[in-house]
């Protein structure tokens, strides 16, 4: 699967949870390259990513996306009782891809051969997060949505993630990262969107 030029956009999007607007009239176009979503806790960063991924109903507005995205949320999205290898193989097969490359991707993210076959709940939080981020390599889609991807990562893994994000950007993929920290990403970003109380304040 070769990444292709792609983009996503939200037009006048409002998302409401329990009568409380979490996103308000948000209009953004995402071009290929790295876009950072910045904002304090509760600003609506996660909801914005989930809106792009089509995981939340829109109370108002429209979403357009050129291709199915890879969405990696704040939690690892790995099913307990299965190993990291089985989880990543499942995700690849579901997308119609072979299981090739899963071992290499997990190895590249520092998951040892033994740990690759252990149930994910027996791994440390950092190992689970790294196994989850190995999906960047095993599902090389044109659009990637990463929600606070640096959570639980040590310095070495954080550096690995920055490299992976930079490589995806250089391949022409649309990478959208929500994070309230990691200013070093600013140098890689083509655009930064600031959110506060569900509204875009900087673009």
């Amino acid at each position, binding site marked *: 699967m070769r990444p292709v030029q792609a983009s996503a956009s939200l037009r006048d999007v409002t998302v409401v949870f329990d009568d409380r607007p979490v996103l308000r009239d948000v209009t953004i176009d995402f071009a290929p390259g790295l876009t950072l979503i910045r904002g304090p806790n509760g600003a609506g960063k996660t909801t914005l990513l989930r809106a792009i991924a089509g995981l939340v109903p829109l109370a108002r507005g429209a979403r357009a996306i050129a291709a199915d995205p890879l969405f990696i*949320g704040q939690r690892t*999205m*790995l099913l307990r009782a299965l190993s990291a290898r089985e989880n990543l193989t499942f995700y690849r097969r579901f997308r*119609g891809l072979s299981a090739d490359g899963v071992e290499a991707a997990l190895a590249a993210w520092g998951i040892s051969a033994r740990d690759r076959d252990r149930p994910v709940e027996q791994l440390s939080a950092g190992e689970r997060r790294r196994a989850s981020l190995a999906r960047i390599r095993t599902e090389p889609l044109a659009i990637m949505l990463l929600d606070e991807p640096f959570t639980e990562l040590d310095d070495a893994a954080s550096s690995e993630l920055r490299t992976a994000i930079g490589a995806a950007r250089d391949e022409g993929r649309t990478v959208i990262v929500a994070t309230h920290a990691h200013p070093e990403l600013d140098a890689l970003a083509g655009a930064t969107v600031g959110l506060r109380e569900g509204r875009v304040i900087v673009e």
Partner: protein
Amino acid sequence: MTGLGRIGLVAVRELRAERREPDGIVAAVTFIAVLVLLESLVVGPVVARDADIAPALFWIALAFATILATMRSFDRELEDDALEGLVALPGGRDALFGGKVVAIAVVLAIVALVGGLLSLVLLDLPLALPLHLVVVVVLGVVALPPVVVVDVVLALRLRARAALVPILALPVLVPQLVAASRGASAAIAGDAVGALSWAGLLFAFAVVYGVIGLTIVPAAIE
């Protein structure tokens, strides 16, 4: 990847997780085994062998086993947002319902096999039409999970779902339980036409609730 292929992938993933962490199936098998053992003690050996009593208790136990297995399955999915990972995939919402129903039906078949054999041996049930009984049990096992999976999905984000799911599911399951119990009774008593008629009704329930589930679960999961 076809829709059926995706359903198969979800079912295999579910069964693999259940094999590694068989808490749900162990609890369900233990529950039905204890029920069969207690049955003859509580109602007496003569009544326990009645062709109406034993199947009714057996199917009530299977209904609870379905609820237990389905709740366990979705609890595992909610941990670490594995469910969101699945529904974020293209075709994931559509495959969720079918995959869960297939996997839970397989789990239920194992529970039914153990419970059925225990009932036949311990209660010494005189079984007139074994093949007809197998048909009724297979269709009953297929008819129960769609209702429970739909109910669990509808109650997924509610804190009180452990209490709500049985309350929501059991009234809807009554027609299936009646059909399965009457069909099994007919097979035990030697009424071939009656057993197959009830089996046909179970098949219809499975189709109707299968279509309902395939239609509303992708929307409800949002």
